[in-house]
């Protein structure tokens, strides 16, 4: 990935005043001097203290407008996520998988996507979903238990959530193979695919097979691993004794580690990797080094397996806090901005809550819908028996007929 053209990096940053980094990393070395320092161990553009630093390989210029936009995204997805957690606590969702702590990795990578790119998520990518312009109520239907997710994956250019760990990485690779077959790589309008997965997923056969396929067929794909340090209770050391990003080398494509709590760096490296993919340069692996600040899901009790001081240490590296510090230090916004944003996020949360509560339960017979594109006679018969059985209750007729598949 290091060789990917620096010229394309930051091409999204368009009009408006560009704000230069305030401080160069490591003893004042700056990109302006043209010194190239590739640090695959950790790409960072914004420190936890809110200092904008430079990385010579992954420099991006953002306008103030863009900084504000990214911050707004971070705040809103965290607020909506908190609302979903609250809804679960109140019994309105069966379960919720929170993105708390991973906002920057998701917003950074999600905003780096071009319209034509395709996303293959896990079950936690609510931030990416937001970036794709999908109504945030969509995953709540899945977690409430009224549908399987609901959005039009083709129109939204984001596939359905995948609960079976790692399975989607192969789908993403196959989709990317299709892009290449269709000749849709090679220019700025080329298509690319991003596959999300966790640190735990890197142990699954499917994920390792997808690396092989992506490499062998040189597919336009970015593997985006959010290393949030845990797979439920198991720390990442149970999945890997070496940094995850280094695996890419063995498969024959570049890998790097980015500060996943840094929205700017997450944006920069993903943008670069996607552009490389769409230009026909093949796959790459990004390990977004981050932290799952909350429980694995609302069913989980992390106090059983990790200590509070660890969580507190990561709180210092919070993705939103550092961005806020930066905006304040650089006077990009005033306090009215934060207040306005807070009430905007609150309004969205209130609206989301109301709409979740109004989500109707599906009709029982709908379970027979969508089993086959063209149905089946046997299933139609089973559905009729199901309907007759329930009609028997409603009409309280003694003739309540059949209940099962009719295999007498």
């Amino acid at each position, binding site marked *: 990935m290091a060789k990917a053209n620096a010229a394309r990096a930051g091409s999204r940053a368009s009009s408006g005043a560009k704000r230069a980094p305030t401080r160069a990393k490591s003893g004042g070395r700056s990109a302006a001097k043209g010194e190239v320092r590739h640090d695959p161990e950790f790409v960072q553009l914004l420190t936890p203290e809110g200092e904008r630093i430079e990385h010579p390989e992954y420099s991006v210029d953002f306008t103030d407008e863009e900084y504000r936009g990214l911050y707004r995204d971070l705040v809103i997805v965290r607020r909506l996520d908190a609302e979903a957690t609250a809804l679960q606590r109140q019994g309105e969702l069966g379960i919720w998988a929170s993105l708390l702590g991973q906002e920057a990795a998701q917003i950074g990578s999600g905003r780096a996507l071009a319209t034509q790119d395709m996303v293959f998520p896990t079950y936690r990518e609510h931030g990416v979903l937001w970036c794709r312009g999908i109504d945030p109520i969509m995953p709540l239907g899945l977690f409430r238990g009224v549908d399987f997710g609901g959005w039009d994956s083709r129109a939204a250019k984001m596939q359905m959530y995948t609960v079976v760990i790692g399975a989607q990485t192969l789908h993403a690779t196959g989709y990317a193979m299709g892009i290449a077959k269709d000749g849709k790589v090679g220019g700025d309008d080329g298509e690319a695919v991003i596959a999300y997965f966790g640190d735990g997923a890197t142990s*699954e056969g499917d994920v390792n097979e997808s690396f092989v396929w992506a490499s062998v067929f040189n597919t336009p794909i970015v593997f985006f691993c959010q290393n949030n340090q845990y797979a439920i*209770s198991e720390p990442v050391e149970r999945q890997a004794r070496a940094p995850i990003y280094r695996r890419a080398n063995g498969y024959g494509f570049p890998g790097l580690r980015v500060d996943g709590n840094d929205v700017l760096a997450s944006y920069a490296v993903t943008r670069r990797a996607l552009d490389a993919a769409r230009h026909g340069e093949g796959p790459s692996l990004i390990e977004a080094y981050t932290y799952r600040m909350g429980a694995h899901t609302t069913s989980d009790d992390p106090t059983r397996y990790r200590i509070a001081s660890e969580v507190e240490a990561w709180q210092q590296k919070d993705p939103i806090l550092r961005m806020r510090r930066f905006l304040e230090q650089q006077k990009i916004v005033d306090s009215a901005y934060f207040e306005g944003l807070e009430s905007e996020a609150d309004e969205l949360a209130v609206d989301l809550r109301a709409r979740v509560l109004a989500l109707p339960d599906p009709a029982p017979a709908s*379970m027979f819908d969508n089993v086959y594109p063209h149905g089946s006679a046997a299933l139609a018969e089973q559905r009729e028996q199901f309907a007759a059985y329930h009609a028997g209750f409603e009409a309280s007729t003694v003739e309540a007929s059949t209940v099962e598949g009719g295999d007498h």
Partner: protein
Amino acid sequence: MAETMTIGKALNSGLRRAMEDDSKVLLMGEDIGKLGGVFRITDALQKDFGEDRVIDTPLAESGIVGTAIGLALRGYRPVCEIQFDGFVFPAFDQIVTQLAKMFARSGGRVALPVVIRIPFGGGIGAVEHHSESPEAYFAHTPGLKVVSCATPHDAYWMIQQAVASDDPIIFMEPKRRYWEKGEVDTSRSLLPLHASHLLREGTDCTVVAYGPMVRVAVDAATAAAEDNGRQLEVIDLRSVSPLDLKPVYESVRKTGRLVIVHEAPLTGSISGEIASKVAGECFYSLEAPVMRVTGFDVPYPPARIEEEYLPDLDRVLDAVDRTFTF
């Protein structure tokens, strides 16, 4: 010695005793160590037996079963936990092509005493892939044995018998019943692993179930007795493969009617096998066709309508009624 405990606790105690009895017994699975498993079935076992014997594995089901096979080849007796029914499929190849066939392929030299524990079935309001009933895939595979417990007593003893068995055992745990309590006689097991069990005597109709549906069958029998005085005979299958159908034949010869209940979808399921066998063995005793109350041939539905999918008391009673219309 009778103790009251939940099915979950009985499994935990049974595993503990199996580990005490044989130092070659190992537990392996995702989150089973420090966390004690997502259902806490292995709670405190790592603390007491150490990380060498209660192993938090990498997140890879094929790896769990594949390495369990290797450990068994080396003389260990691994007990694998698959976190949820829907996640056994990455291990399907290792189970079906390797675990099941090794004894035959080695000319009977190499037995693989591996137990694969799978919390299965629905009714807990979970998201997709957490409520499946995949037992028929395994029952369809020669070389594997498949069992399911329905009571704390059976949970306690069957898990120990499974660990002691030289066969590869798929051990299906009724997850929605983990919290149900019952008496466990810790001094004796009463039944061998692959025997079905007559739970409740009756004269009018036989109801056969296993795992989570045993409770539904028993409740239906209670309700039928109250409603219209019909006496249902309930048999807990316990072993899905091999089937122990002698008690079922005897029962059907007496009642003339049979209703089979399971959560798994209808087509290609265990109930079809039972119905066929019973039709062959009890042809002249049957007063009505064998009825099956099962899940439907659809993907397991969203949680808010899962109760419409799962067999319940009403559906069982409806099927019983229908056996009286012939």
